[in-house]
């Protein structure tokens, strides 16, 4: 089941939340809408769901134009950040809710709820109330409740946002495995790039109500389409283009970008490198982070342990740095 968002715009008063959004979600994929708060990602998700109506444009789900169609008739599953479980109902009754609305038979409801309780690994907890469950368990119940009615698409609004770091990591790995089993076209909103990278087949990076880039996690990281994307995804050194470093490269725009792991450290000048001083060495476990000063600019480089041991870097040591890759963008945001 595909989702097509066709030139959708949406304003709240004078604030334009979505500007001419065009997006196609391929059937059976898991797509992340990634962006900082206020980027319009939640509004886009709610517009796909039918909880918001677009000012212009169309939402096409599975070939049907659903613009203006009530959320009740869209057959979508929606999962909220704060679970939105029905507190007065048991876990079983929460999961059964949509089936009861559809007047399914008692036998079918019982079978389906048991099946879903198995899927979310909460077999023994069906008769508890939501308040007796942990956050991670509640979110799994919310997911089961949404899946119970076999929706055409599954939409998740910051599904792990309210959970602590450890549970969050477990749950997203679980969601990825679940999607590999269930194969339902899914869109989830997140502001956490690591989460998007780990879970999604495709990432949609948003900022200021616009789509900055759509691509696989690797594409987004290796070939960022705009200064916003390179700054938002992963770590990056940002230098003004007039900095007297790497002058033998052709640059565009006002800023040049170098990923910390693409900055090579040499002990001798090879003619193409710049002189730098080691200011700080930080051990990150399997990786070493070196903070370097070149004139008045500060840069960060990431080295493997092996390389660090070979170079034997010390505080205040003079070294030579050479980027293996430099990124810059033309004014019209075309990457080179």
């Amino acid at each position: 089941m595909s989702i097509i968002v066709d030139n959708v715009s949406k304003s709240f008063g004078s604030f334009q939340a979505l500007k001419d959004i065009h997006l196609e979600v391929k059937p059976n994929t898991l797509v992340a809408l990634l962006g900082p708060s206020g980027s319009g990602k939640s509004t886009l998700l709610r517009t796909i769901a039918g909880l918001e109506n677009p000012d212009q444009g169309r939402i096409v789900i599975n070939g049907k134009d659903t613009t203006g169609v009530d959320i009740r008739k869209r057959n979508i599953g929606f999962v909220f950040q704060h679970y939105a479980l029905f507190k007065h109902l048991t876990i079983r009754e929460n999961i059964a809710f949509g089936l009861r609305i559809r007047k399914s038979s008692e036998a079918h409801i019982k079978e389906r709820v048991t099946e879903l309780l198995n899927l979310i690994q909460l077999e023994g907890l069906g008769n508890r109330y939501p308040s007796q469950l942990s956050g991670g368990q509640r979110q799994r119940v919310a997911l089961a409740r949404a899946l119970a009615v076999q929706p055409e698409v599954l939409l998740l609004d910051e599904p792990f946002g309210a959970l602590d770091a450890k549970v969050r990591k477990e749950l997203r790995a679980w969601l990825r495995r679940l999607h590999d089993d269930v194969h339902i076209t899914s869109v989830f909103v997140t502001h956490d790039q690591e989460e998007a990278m780990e879970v999604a087949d495709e990432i949609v990076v948003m900022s200021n109500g616009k789509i900055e880039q759509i691509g696989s996690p690797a594409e987004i990281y290796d070939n960022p389409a705009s200064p916003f994307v390179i700054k938002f995804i992963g770590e990056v050194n940002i230098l003004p283009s007039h900095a007297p470093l790497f002058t033998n490269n052709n640059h565009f725009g006002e800023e040049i970008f170098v990923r910390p792991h693409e900055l090579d450290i040499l002990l001798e000048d090879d003619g193409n490198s710049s002189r730098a001083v080691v200011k700080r060495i930080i051990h990150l476990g399997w990786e070493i982070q070196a903070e370097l000063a070149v004139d008045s600019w500060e840069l960060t480089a990431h080295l493997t342990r092996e390389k660090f041991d070979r170079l034997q870097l010390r505080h205040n040591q003079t070294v030579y740095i050479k980027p293996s890759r430099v990124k810059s963008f033309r004014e019209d945001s075309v990457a080179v």
Partner: protein
Amino acid sequence: MVNIPYEPPMEVNTNQISKFISKISIPWTITIGYLTIILLVPMAALILKSSTLGFGKFWEIATSDVAISAYQVTFITAIFAGLINGLMGTLLAWVLVRYDFPGRKIFDAMIDIPFALPTAVAGLVLATVYSPTGWIGQFFTPFGIKIAFSQLGVFVAMLFISLPFVVRTLQPVLQEMERETEEASWALGATDWQTFRLVILPPLIPPILTGVALGFSRAVGEYGSIVVIASNIPFQDLIAPVLVFQRLEEYDYVGATVIGAVLLLISLVLLLVINFLQKWGSNYAEN
């Protein structure tokens, strides 16, 4: 800094009672003491005074025709007032929480007026407005409906003084209710009516019942406004609290305490019910 000399703990008397007392915490002691002088002793006095009669005489006064009729007028009218305010109070709380309109804050503040207004003043105002020629009463006169100086007047006064209870018990619950649960219900295909019936209403029932019960017991105990708006004629619109006062005026203190004791017992039962409802309501509440 003042140097506070060290004082060795006092020798604890080893007998059982003082051992028990020394274990009682200060807040607990104060609570019990306060309840004793404010509540328990006066209530005990009421029961004791009425029990000096012996059961046969007590029963005779408590179940006299005038008294039975007064209980009936009181409780039946109060039940209706409680139920109507259950419906209207729910609607009011809903509108005050969910709707935004000019003057909302003023309306919200007005809800508490029945708490603050002296009940005699309330009775006077209601009796004037609902009298056969009053601003509101005149519209009912052509249909032969008399509000002030009848049981309907008692009903109106009870509606007035018990208005805030449901609104005030429901408001915080409505404010805390997550809007997302309604959206979740829609996403699962539920209509507005199904969402109201299956998602919104069930968590509201315990606070509504609590509000109704509180309003009802307030209405049962009301005296000041009803004595003004009713004609206080036995077997017509005479309520039990007014009957008590009439007995006092006749220097029939025993008769007054007997009816008072019956009211007290019924109120106690009601308050136990309220406590039960509150406990029921908090059963599935999130901690």
